[in-house]
Structure formats: structure tokens, C-alpha cells
């Protein structure tokens, strides 16, 4: 078919260059969020190279499926997703377009971290979009409970061992170190948050429900009348009344939502709008998983 010696030599080289991935010195991990990237870096250490897709300052429900993300995924050994359909609007098309069979759903190169946790707010009864953007498997913002972060880190460690068994000892040691730091931090956060235990708060979306549960706060309402649906004037009036009767002092708003919708509720109910990062990268200086909770706790307890 290819008669010249040059062609017969060049073709396999060309095909090899096109169809094979370059040899990697470290496990190439792509996570869907910066939170998962931070946990993977903590567990993987120098043996992993981590990239993420959704920046922490953007709403993770809405991410552009940019082809440049497919390029990241095309050379990944492991993809770690939040799961519970948080990324359903963009991850499937990115995985499909990556042309990387190693990281498709159902392979050992694809991990949904939600497998490690027990979800809250699993909807019951008839589910349809008249109830807003519900997630049938429950609230997917579980990384905002630090104990869930511990569980996810353990799951990531197990998967890294599977993908890269030669560095298992290193992954175990890194996990132990992370858990030790987390335990120390949790004691500090619990002490700081003790003053808010039992208090009633209002959320913008259900983002901080796991955090509130972890520290004993009660989320009594949401700025959104239904998940993903903008507030109406009537709903705002109802929330003002609810805020008054429930003695709400904090309205928790993600950095990617405008505080303008929450401001009249805060004003009417005598509460305060707390603009909080909901992910690593969600605010300036929030560059690690532990740092994320440092910032949230500081804002809630000191207002700064």
C-alpha cells in the first residue's frame, strides 16, 4: 500500500504520535471543581499533576463546555467529579469530546466523589421542574461539610492507589497528614462557630446547607423561591416576615450571586448579608480546602 521506505516508516510514527498519550511522570488528574483539586493535591502530593475545570468563583451548575477543557481531559489518567448531577449540564459533553476512553463514566479513571458521603435533602414525591432545579439524588454541595471533605479525601486516596499502586505508601502518608490537619482545624472552627449553634439563617441557594448542618445552624428559608428560580417580590416579603419571626441574623450568599436580592430581606428582617466563598478560589486568598473553611468561619463570626 505504501511503497516507499520513507512512507512505511513515517506512517506508524505519525499514528503513534496522534493516537498515543505522552508518557507522564505523575498521575494526571482533572477534577471538576477547585475543591476537589485541593483535596487531590493534598492526598496526591508530588505524585499527581492536578488541573480543574470549574473555577471556584463561578456557579458550578453553569460551566461553559469549552473545547479547551476537552484538551485537559484528553490526557487525564483520572477524572474526579462532584457527582449527584451537579455537573450534568457540562461534564458529559466534555468527557465525550475528550476522546479519552480511560476516563469515561464507568471506568476506573472516572470517580464521583459523592460516593463517599451521605446526601441530605433527597427529594421525595413527584419530581419535575415545576419544583425548580432539584437534584434527584440530593443536595450536591456536600464538600461544605468538612467531615465530608475527610471522606472524599479517603476515597481519592483509594482511587489513587488503584491507578498508581507504586506510590500507595506516599498517598497513605499524605492522607494521614491531611486528616491530622483537618482534625485540628475542625476543633478551632467548632469553637468559633459555637456562638451560632442553634441560630436560624437564610440561604440564597441550598449551597451552605451541609455547612449549616455541620455547625448546628438551621436554614429556615431561601432567597430563591425554588432552586434556581429568581426571587419574586411576594417571596421576598414572605422571607422578610419569616426572618423577623425566626430571628434570622445571617443571610448566606455565594460570591457568584448578587447580594442585591438578599439586601431587602436583610434590611426588613434586621439581618446581615454574608457573602461567602462556596469553593476554593471563591474569594481572594482562598486557595486550599482548609482555607475555605477558615474564611467562611471568619466572615460569619467576625463579619470580616
Amino acid at each position, binding site marked *: 500500500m505504501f511503497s516507499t521506505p520513507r512512507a512505511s516508516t513515517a506512517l506508524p510514527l505519525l499514528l503513534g*504520535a*496522534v*493516537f*498515543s*498519550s505522552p508518557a507522564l511522570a505523575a498521575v494526571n488528574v482533572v477534577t471538576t471543581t477547585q475543591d476537589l483539586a485541593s483535596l487531590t493535591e493534598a492526598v496526591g502530593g508530588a505524585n499527581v499533576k492536578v488541573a480543574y475545570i470549574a*473555577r471556584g*468563583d*463561578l*456557579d458550578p*451548575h*453553569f460551566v*461553559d*463546555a*469549552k*473545547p*479547551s477543557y*476537552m*484538551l485537559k481531559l*484528553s490526557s487525564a489518567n483520572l477524572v474526579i467529579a462532584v457527582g449527584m*448531577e451537579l455537573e*450534568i*449540564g*457540562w461534564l*458529559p*459533553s466534555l468527557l*465525550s*469530546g*475528550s*476522546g*479519552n*476512553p*480511560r476516563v*469515561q463514566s*464507568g471506568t476506573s479513571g472516572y470517580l464521583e466523589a459523592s460516593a463517599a458521603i451521605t446526601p441530605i435533602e433527597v427529594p421525595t414525591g413527584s*419530581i*419535575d*421542574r415545576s*419544583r425548580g*432545579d*432539584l*437534584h*434527584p*439524588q440530593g443536595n450536591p454541595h456536600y464538600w461544605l461539610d468538612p467531615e465530608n471533605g475527610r471522606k472524599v479525601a479517603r476515597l481519592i486516596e483509594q482511587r489513587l492507589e488503584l491507578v498508581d499502586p507504586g506510590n500507595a505508601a506516599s498517598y497513605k502518608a499524605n492522607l494521614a497528614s491531611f486528616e491530622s490537619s483537618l482534625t485540628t482545624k475542625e476543633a478551632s472552627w467548632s469553637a468559633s462557630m459555637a456562638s451560632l449553634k442553634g441560630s436560624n439563617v437564610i440561604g440564597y441557594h441550598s449551597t451552605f446547607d451541609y455547612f449549616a448542618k455541620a455547625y448546628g445552624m438551621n436554614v429556615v428559608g431561601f432567597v430563591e423561591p425554588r*432552586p*434556581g*428560580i*429568581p426571587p419574586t417580590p411576594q417571596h421576598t416579603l414572605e422571607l422578610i416576615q419569616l426572618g423577623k419571626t425566626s430571628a434570622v441574623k445571617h443571610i448566606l450568599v455565594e*460570591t*457568584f*450571586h*448578587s*447580594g442585591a436580592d438578599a439586601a431587602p430581606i436583610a434590611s426588613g428582617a434586621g439581618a446581615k448579608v454574608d457573602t461567602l466563598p462556596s469553593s476554593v478560589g471563591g474569594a481572594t486568598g482562598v486557595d486550599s480546602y482548609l482555607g475555605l473553611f477558615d474564611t467562611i468561619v471568619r466572615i460569619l463570626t467576625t463579619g470580616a
Partner: protein
Amino acid sequence: MHTILVSLLAFQAPALAEDGAGQSFLSAMNPGISANGLFLAGAELDDGELAAPSWTGESADLPGKGETFGTGLSVQEMEVQLTSAVDPYFKANMVLAIPGTEGLEVEEGFVTVTAVPRLLVNIGKIKEPFGRENVTHTHALLTIDRALVSQRVFGEEGLNDVGVNAQLLLPLPWYSQLTLGVDAGQNEGVLGSGDAGGFGYLAHWKNLVDLGDNYSVEVGASGLSGLDDIGGQSVVGGVDVTVKGHGSARHQWNRLVWQNEFIFADKGRAPSASKPGQQIGGLYSTLEYSFTKRFWLGGRFDMVGLPKPVDGGQTFGATAIAVLAPTEFSCFRLQAQRQFLPGGHTADSLTGQLSFVIGVHPAHSY
């Protein structure tokens, strides 16, 4: 798409083989099913074929006029889409469309081979990757109608034919995808020889580079060649440039899309052509800006007749559109358009559209 992805059939399937997540085996095996509808209310002047009043007194259909939707109420399109993995090696996508209210047609129906690294192979009836607009489903367009040059070159359905294409992700530092394909050569606009061997041959090279964290630029080049319906050969070329971006944090909903495409078709090139050949070229440019998550404005400029006049002159179009989207699954569009046609004619339209999607609808391409 922040969504509830529950198969429409999930509630009908018997609760057999429940797993830990409460999903039955039967429902898990259902394909993702979605349906969308586009309803129109329009007022049109100078359309000739409809009994609408005309301020220029024209009664005949105007040469060079692109698709408009007449005066009154109508259904633009209804579609049902099914998507699923076939097995570990293939996934399938089927789009059944009802243009208007009668007649069912297969708009797309193809399988994609997913098992080969860096390579996707699509087999079936496919919206072919010529430029950007051609692969976009109607309800995902900025405007209610397609660009005039696309309509003139490829016809009402666009370049959408039975065939095979292979999309290779090139080993370059930026996203670069090369597509090579062959189709049945049935496009009504530039192919359609009717010969058994009258295939169309397609090439598309797509490149995307991130400009910082929030912006990207995409540059593409496309080519198509095949036997045409006048006994000659058609060669079609195109280039497209798109800039997209959005703000950070609470400004992420401030989004900008600037999309541009130039298409040139040279039809009836071979000496055996029984009729004179024809060259049709033109461009469009769309610009949209989202002020909030739910509201955006946009516009489109059209020009047909580059570099040579077509239908005795050049056609220009100016379109303005406002979009209000209560959620990701419904939106209202209001579009005003004027077409400046050869001979000094104009065609004006004001069209409202309601678009909705139900079920499990896959994400549109970036």
C-alpha cells in the same frame, strides 16, 4: 444546565431490580429523552406569498429573500431527541423533527464510536461540521432564523446528510480538531447529483485558544466538494471566527458572544455542466450580550453577494433580537428584521418565539 435529569419513562417502568440509589434497572436503561417546541407569532411585510399587506405593493416572492415566517401564528418546529450509550464502544443520538405541525423527519440519527483515543467517528445522518451555525440546532441559535448566506448556499435544512466523519483531536498545545468526512451528496443547495457515486467530501479544522480565564477565540476553516445537480462539481469553502467571554464571580452572567462566518460556493465548475455555473458567497456576523442570567440582547448583520452579486445584486440583512429566559428550559425571543434585496426591495418582519425544552436534553456545543 442545572437540571433534574429524570427519564420521562422512569416513572412508567416497573420498579424491578432497584439499586441503592432507588433507580430501577429498566429506567436506567432508557435513553435520555427530551422534546422541544418553537412557537411563532409574526407580522411580515412584502413577503409576496402571504396575503399580508405590503407597503411597496410587491406581490411576487422576492428574489434573494431569506426565510421569514409570514404573518400569523405558527409552529416553527417540534423535536424529540433520544441519547444514550449503546455499549462501551458506541453512543447514539437521534433527533426526530416535525417542521411545522405535519410530517415527521429524521433530522439526525447517528452513532459515535468512542473507544479510540483522541478520535470520534460519527456514522449516520448528521448535521455536518461546516462552520459553526450549521451544527447548531434551531432552538439554540441566537436568532429565530438562520443566516441568509447559510440558507442560500445549503438550503433550508443546512448541510445535513447521511455519511461518516472522523474527528481527530490533534496533538497540539491548543484545542485543534480536524474532521474529515464523506456524505451521500444529497444537499439540495450545492450537491444533489443523484449519482450513486456522487459523494460529498468534507473537511473542517477547528481551533480554540483561551484568552485568559474568561475569554476564548475560535477559528475554523471548512471545505466541501462533490457533484452537483447541474452536471458539474461544487466546491464550497468557509471560515469562521468566534469570540466568547464572560465576567467573573457575580458578573459571570455578563456574557459576550461575537460570531462571524464567511461562506463561498462555486457550483457547476466542470466543463460538462449542463447549465451555467453559479457562485454564491456571503457572510454574517452576530453579536449578543447578556445583561443578566435571564436577559440578553443581540443582533445579526447579513450580506449575500460576495464577491459577486447574486440575483442581480447584493442582499443585506439587519436583525435585532431580545431574549428573556425565565429558566434554562424556556425562553421568549422577539426579533425585528429588515432585508435589503436587489432592486431596491425590502422585506420586513417582526417575529416572537416561545421556546421550551422538557426532559433530558444534552448540552449544546460551546
